[in-house]
């Protein structure tokens, strides 16, 4: 199977130019006129599953996976900061999507539905990890640094050790800063910033009011700038 280029998502109909942009724009629930390629594909897969053509459905699903895989991994990795766990979370989300494809309705973009399933899985994993850590008393030999704690899945790194070290420090600092955000700010920031979701998409993904999403997003960025020294 070849790599399929990510699709440009079908955005909900943009607000009229006259609409005031006070951060509390009215939420329109009107879906876009033409479904995007991934939404169309999801509908097709649902029909195939309905008609029992499972092999073809599975084959088409591979294309859908390819469309969203990279973005999903970026989100899951930023959420979990562990490559193996991010990989599992993404796999689980796709399997869940396929097994629940019969309940997918095209009123909303496929991406919104999928991302919601993905972040729910990531949140569950973070919760499970926190529960585990409560009982887990690491001994000194297990107290490994970032080098070993963060598993790689056949990844590559800069060849220059100094550059690698600097990059890792920078990323660790950023990850620690993001971790200091409160749960809602973190999720909203992740989805907007790494998931390329608009506040309206995030509102649909999380059930949080759209204007509240904007507030969380702006607070998150303000805090990050404060933590990381990007403030003016």
């Amino acid at each position: 199977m070849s790599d399929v280029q990510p699709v440009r998502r079908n955005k909900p109909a943009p607000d009229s130019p006259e609409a005031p942009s006070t951060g509390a724009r009215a939420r329109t629930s009107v879906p876009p006129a033409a479904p995007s390629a991934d939404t169309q594909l999801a509908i097709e897969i649902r029909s195939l599953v309905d008609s029992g053509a499972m092999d073809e459905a599975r084959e088409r699903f591979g294309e859908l996976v390819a469309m969203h895989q990279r973005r999903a991994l970026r989100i899951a990795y930023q959420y979990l900061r562990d490559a193996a766990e991010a990989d599992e979370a993404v796999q689980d989300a796709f399997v869940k999507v396929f097994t629940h494809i019969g309940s997918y309705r095209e009123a909303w973009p496929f991406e919104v539905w999928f991302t919601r399933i993905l972040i729910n899985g990531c949140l569950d994993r973070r919760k499970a990890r926190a529960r585990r850590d409560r009982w887990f008393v690491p001994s000194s030999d297990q107290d490994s640094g970032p080098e070993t704690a963060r598993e790689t899945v056949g990844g590559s790194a800069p060849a220059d050790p100094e550059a690698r070290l600097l990059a890792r420090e920078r990323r660790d600092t950023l990850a620690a800063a993001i971790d200091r955000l409160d749960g809602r700010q973190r999720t909203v920031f992740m989805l907007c910033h790494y998931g390329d979701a608009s506040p309206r998409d995030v509102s649909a993904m999380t059930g949080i009011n759209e204007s509240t999403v904007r507030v969380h997003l702006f607070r998150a960025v303000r805090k990050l700038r404060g933590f990381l020294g990007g403030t003016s």
Partner: protein
Amino acid sequence: MFRSGHLKDDQLLECYYAGRTGEALDPRLADHLSTCMECNEQFDTITTFLDDIRTDAEEEADALFTAEHLRTQREHILDRLDQVQRPARVISFPRRDATPAQRSGGRVPPRWLAAAAAAGLFIGVAVGGYFGPERLLRAPGGSSPSRQMVVQPRPSPKPAVLVNSTQPTASDDDAFLMDLELALARPQPRELQAFDAMTPHVRDLR
């Protein structure tokens, strides 16, 4: 931050994210931004900060998840779908039309079974009393399998180093999940109810 006569940071962020996601931007903001040098400089600072964060994160993730890894992951997903699709093996239940005699008198547990269960319970209580949870969690060295089971409920997780930098994340997430569930439980417009109905809830995903 308030800058009299100029765009505030939140408005500049609004401009930044609108530009990224293709959302319509308030023309007043766009007009001001296109004519005001000071706001433009401020906007550039924010843009650079946020773009750097994104680029860095994307590079990091993309270095971990190479094209080869994506291919392998797709194969794993499709393999798992095969497992899901495969019809489950049917394990036959006891027949419903069995006679009362068959149902009750078919197999009487032997007496030694009750004795063995009692002995097991006694040993369990005695050993549990000796190796209390405190001891099991803090015992130095050693490699008793029972200790491994208690200390490490999951077979081979490596501790995620960055998450323990701040403790409150778990409670934050708890609060977030709680809010999420509350938001979903609230009465919603009909179209959202339909969307909600087809979406697995947090509680379903456990």
